């Protein structure tokens, strides 16, 4: 119990002192999670839309596969990405191993099914009146997608926030692909894992609190998008 309290105090100290080690991890975390969120939203929203909007053969099977992808273990994704980008892998020449870009690729794979699956089930439940209205007002494909997504924006926000939480807290990919290299690819979560592994539980708690503070700040700045 005692380490919870001392962790809390340490978190405040780290924030006030502007500890450069902590800030480097914060920066890495922000960088990598922003990229992976952009990519997974960019891919996940249209895919989710298509799965939710249209009726086609094999749609239910695809949904089941997508739901299954929600259960991709991060270490597994890490291994997968590693297999491709390690120097012996087909994309070894890109030198993505032990880089933030590499982590972002893996996190995109992690977040994509979340964005797509939740989006699909939200889109699936839109009022049939909306579909009819859009087609009757002459919306083309692009406008149909954009307008539908905008109509369900609060739900999409929930999908994005959930995916963001996942990306922000994952360790397996960052560890495997990033290598937890100090000053370079050490993110908040790999730092927490490291400190905890060292038995520095209060450091782990402190870093965890700072990560939660980051999430809180992001969510607070998004909360203006919320329904009033």
């Amino acid at each position, binding site marked *: 119990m005692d380490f919870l309290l001392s962790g809390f105090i340490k978190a405040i100290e780290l924030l006030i002192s502007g500890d450069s080690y902590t800030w480097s991890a914060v920066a890495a975390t922000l960088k990598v999670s922003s990229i992976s969120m952009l990519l997974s939203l960019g891919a996940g929203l249209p895919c989710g839309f298509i799965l939710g909007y249209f009726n086609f053969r094999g749609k239910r099977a695809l949904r089941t596969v997508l739901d299954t992808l929600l259960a991709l273990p991060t270490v597994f994704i890490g291994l997968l990405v590693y297999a491709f980008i390690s*120097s012996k892998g087909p994309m070894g020449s890109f030198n993505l*191993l032990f880089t933030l870009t590499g982590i972002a690729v893996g996190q995109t794979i992690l977040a994509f099914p979340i964005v797509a699956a939740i989006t699909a089930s939200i889109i699936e439940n839109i009022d049939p009146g909306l579909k009819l209205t859009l087609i009757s007002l002459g919306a083309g494909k692009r406008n149909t997608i954009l307008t539908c997504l905008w109509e369900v924006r609060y739900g999409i926000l929930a999908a994005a926030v959930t995916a963001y939480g996942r990306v922000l807290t994952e360790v397996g990919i960052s560890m495997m692909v990033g290598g937890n290299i100090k000053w370079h690819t050490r993110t908040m979560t790999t730092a927490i894992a490291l400190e905890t*592994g060292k038995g520095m539980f209060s450091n782990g708690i402190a870093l965890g609190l700072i990560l939660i503070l980051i999430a809180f700040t992001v969510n607070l700045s998004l909360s203006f998008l919320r329904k009033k």
Partner: protein
Amino acid sequence: SWAGQSLMMATTTSTDNTGLLDYLIPYFEKETGIELKWTATGTGKALKLGERCDVDVLLVHAPGAEKAYIKKGFGKDRKEIMYNDFVIIGPDSDPAGIKGKSISDALLAVKSKQAIFVSRGDDSGTNKKEKLLWKDAGISLPDKEKWYVQTGQGMLASINVCEERKGYTMTDRGTYIKYQSQKGGNAPLKVLVEGDQILLNQYSVLTLDPKNCPNAKYDLAMKYLNWMAGENAQNLVRDFRLLGKKLFIPNAK
């Protein structure tokens, strides 16, 4: 001439967790101008990363595996740098009565008393050593025994399990010192068996065979190997203290 280049190393968690690298590497970088990045993982994975040429150099502690590694053509040069030692720890009450015994006797006592024994069970250098001890004592690995708890985790986590379960375990001295200090010098687990030659924990630097990994920076790796074996580094290792206690004994030849 090396300035601005960077070297990627895979190492075991113990070197990183004790803070040795954080202490040592800045000297290396200052003297050579080479930037050294390292990823700290289990020994097995570190060797694997080398085998797949994702790093340039290794710092590990599993002599048997290292020699086989070179034989398989993955590693080229191996330089022993330093050692510390393993100890067997257990509760002060010592229910199996192993204190002061030889290692084999101690393990036999644990087995016959069915006292809890915590093993890392992760195929790390430490785990490999522990399995060797059982073998030496003539005991087949008690894999499915209820009293033999395999954590599959790092050393410190395993010590914590050990403490919760009031059992015995084998640990490297560095981690034990950290554990001790975290308990404020009042650790429930005490060193019960130590000092045997077999308990030595040898750390070595390994370079990768350029035949297997033509892109690995072999020359930089050699530079690092030589620096670690050099007088300067050896002295630094000797002076390194964790919580006021010496941890590694340099032994580069």
